């Protein structure tokens, strides 16, 4: 029996406290994304009143489908931000994996090509961001900017800088366009990934280690946590999800482009921060990230429905992000001297 099992035995009789504890824990976690929840609610009410098409199942499925890629990137980035880092290469990784997938499609069946493309993304993220940041301890800003440029360049070389059509590969196209029980397959995939990530982050030892490393890396190290392994793992996970996002985006628009995700790293980062995850690491949640992505998605949708210039959505989301960070500062500024 290990020491932690012994401790578990000693504390088994703590069950009565469980319900109250859970309620309090939930209340505490909610406060971090209360801001975006309020603004999202406001937006939904506003659109429901002014836009008759807004409150329809089709429109909601449409919003979900349009934001699958953003959610996948944001989930990966949440892990990275929680450790106190950021990954600016996820946009490039998308284009990279899309082009890798297109290359592989010429030589093998589509399911295998798609799987291999994601695995290539995993290996690339592990070998670059993972090892250089996690193991060698280099600056995450510099490394991920470098990796992003490198992957984007490789994708451009292999594709000749052009979008490459993949419409002839029926399996790929069906993943991107088919519905199951009325729900797009891509939405189901993203929902599955989100659910697994949520469970891992909340209920696994690894998930809590991510928080511990972000909260204080030195304290985590002295407490016996393998900080290197945790950092390598989050950058690898983030790159892998970006690779999956690249393949899915190619499937959705039936074309693989080296530029598929350029700029999306910042949108996804904004979604994570909107969801209350701290840029300093150690604080945040995937539910918040989901709300952040939903807010950006609903905002974009509303702007389209209302026929306003789509550029306004950038102005609004930027302003909301800054206000949210300001509120967060006021809130935590009081808690921490």
């Amino acid at each position: 029996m290990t020491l932690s099992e012994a401790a578990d035995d000693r504390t088994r009789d703590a069950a009565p406290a469980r319900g109250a504890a859970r309620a309090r824990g939930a209340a505490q976690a909610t406060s971090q994304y209360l801001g975006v929840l309020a603004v999202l609610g406001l937006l939904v009410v506003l659109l429901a009143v002014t836009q008759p098409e807004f409150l329809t199942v089709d429109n909601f499925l449409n919003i979900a489908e349009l934001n699958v890629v953003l959610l996948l990137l944001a989930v990966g980035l949440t892990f990275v931000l929680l450790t106190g880092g950021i990954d600016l290469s996820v946009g490039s990784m998308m284009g990279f994996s899309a082009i890798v997938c297109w290359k592989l499609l010429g030589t093998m069946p589509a399911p295998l090509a798609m799987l291999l493309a994601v695995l290539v993304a995993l290996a690339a993220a592990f070998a670059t961001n993972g090892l250089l940041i996690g193991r060698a301890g280099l600056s995450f800003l510099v490394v991920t900017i470098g990796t992003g440029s490198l992957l984007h360049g490789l994708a451009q070389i292999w594709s000749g800088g052009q979008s490459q059509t993949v419409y002839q590969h029926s399996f790929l196209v069906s993943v991107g366009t088919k519905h199951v029980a009325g729900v797009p397959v891509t939405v189901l995939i993203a929902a599955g990934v989100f659910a697994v990530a949520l469970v891992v982050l909340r209920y696994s030892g690894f998930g809590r280690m991510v928080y511990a490393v972000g909260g204080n890396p030195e304290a985590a190290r002295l407490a016996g946590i393998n900080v290197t392994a945790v950092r390598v793992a989050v950058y690898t996970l983030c790159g892998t999800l970006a690779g999956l996002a690249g393949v899915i985006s190619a499937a959705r628009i039936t074309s693989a482009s080296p530029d598929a995700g350029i700029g999306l790293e910042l949108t996804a980062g904004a979604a994570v921060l909107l969801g209350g995850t701290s840029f300093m690491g150690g604080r945040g949640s995937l539910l918040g990230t989901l709300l952040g992505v939903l807010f950006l998605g609903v905002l974009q949708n509303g702007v389209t429905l209302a026929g306003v210039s789509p550029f306004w959505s950038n102005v609004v989301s930027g302003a909301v992000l800054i206000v949210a960070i300001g509120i967060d500062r006021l809130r935590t500024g009081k808690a921490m001297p």
Partner: protein
Amino acid sequence: MTDVPEGPPLLRVAGAAKRFGAVHALRGADLVVRAGEVVCLAGENGSGKSTLARIVAGSLAPDAGTVELDGAPAAFGSPRAALAAGVCLVSQEPTLVPGLSVAENVLLHRFRGPLRPVRRSALAAEAAPYLERAGLRIDPATPAGALPPGERELVELAKALAAGPRLLVLDEATTRMPDPERLFGVVDRLAAGGTGVVLITHRLREIRRACGRATVLRDGATVAELGPDELTDERLSAAMVGRDLGEYFHKRDVAVGEEVLGVRDLVTDRSPHPITFGVRAGEIVGLAGLVGAGRSELLETLAGARRARGGGVLLDGAPLAAASPRAARRAGIALVPEDRFAQALAAAHSIRDNLAVPWLRALRRTDRAADRERAHRAVADYRVRSASVDAPVATLSGGNAQKLVLAKALGHRPRVLLLDEPTRGVDIGARSDIYELVTGLAAEGTAIVLASSDLLELLGLADRVIVLAEGRPVGELDRDEATEERIALLALGGGERDDAV
């Protein structure tokens, strides 16, 4: 108080109070300084000396109390306003900009507008006399980052001199200085020229050498004013500690057992000198030495947080290859590191989450009920005063945070406990609790290594004291032969006889 110079007070602080979250850093501190006088502000770590210094220098606003300069209210809103009034602070933390030259650093406060051109040659000429007065002969164009630590301190002093201070506050300025006498020479000349000087230090020898008078703080309040005839070790330490050693320590006679921790020719990454000693079950071995003597490095090496360059560690007689904190922890070695918030706790996380960290396993489900139960038990067992186990540890006072660090280190019932400055910045009540805990652990057979700058603490708790100087073991004193004087003499390299603390 016979020889206090007459005249209007240059500085008068009355009833200054300051709170940081739940921590009362100051609760009613008074300080009077006259022109041409050198006053010592003495007190233990955490007694509020630095907070008071920062209030005087305008970098903190007091919650209550008054600050008067020349009898007029002087609530400086910023360090710049204080500087303009001639109040200058040399703070404990280094403030030099490493990328700027020495001259630019010395004259930093004179850079007013971003559009004023800066001529490097003129700067060097302007800075030279201040460097000269601080006793530093270096090229003013040298980048500040290239200087050794001792010289950086003198540049800080030159920087203060360049401000033309009427009141100079030196906060632990001698800690990193190889030759404090140089500093005292400058201080004497300044005082002779009518400047009031506040010297913050806890080294009794320096107080006697440089100061005419001492104001003693304890737990954030002024508790004593000592005149020139009263500056004795006994009076000062009694005022600083506030009670007798007898009621402070609870050392019990423990039958020591077999050697648990064996350190054999261990070479740390900081100094080339091998260290050998053993700690038996139930024994408390003290590590004494000045800042930078290598105590923390030794403990961190034993805890696997630093790589050893040579030698080895035995646990129960068997070689231990603790190449990581993880391996050391598994083997039963726990470290309470020197800096609570930098090395042991995540300030924004709750008590519960902080205590859960050592128990995490990557591939295992977390048990929140167990985490919660563990936190409740620790709060009760270690007498941590907190509203809730969900409160961020940043809201705890220093003493309560330190108890939490102990709870975290002791969760796995270690056989060897390494304590690095376990009571620094901890209030008296919590200190007493911690001493009781440590002696209790020894009585249960834990082998304990205690590194501390607090000699009273070492003398009160340790069975033996090993003294380090510049990374080298320079002596070992048994309980019967250890005195403050002998430890201090060894720590200072066995040199000047007058060095008795």
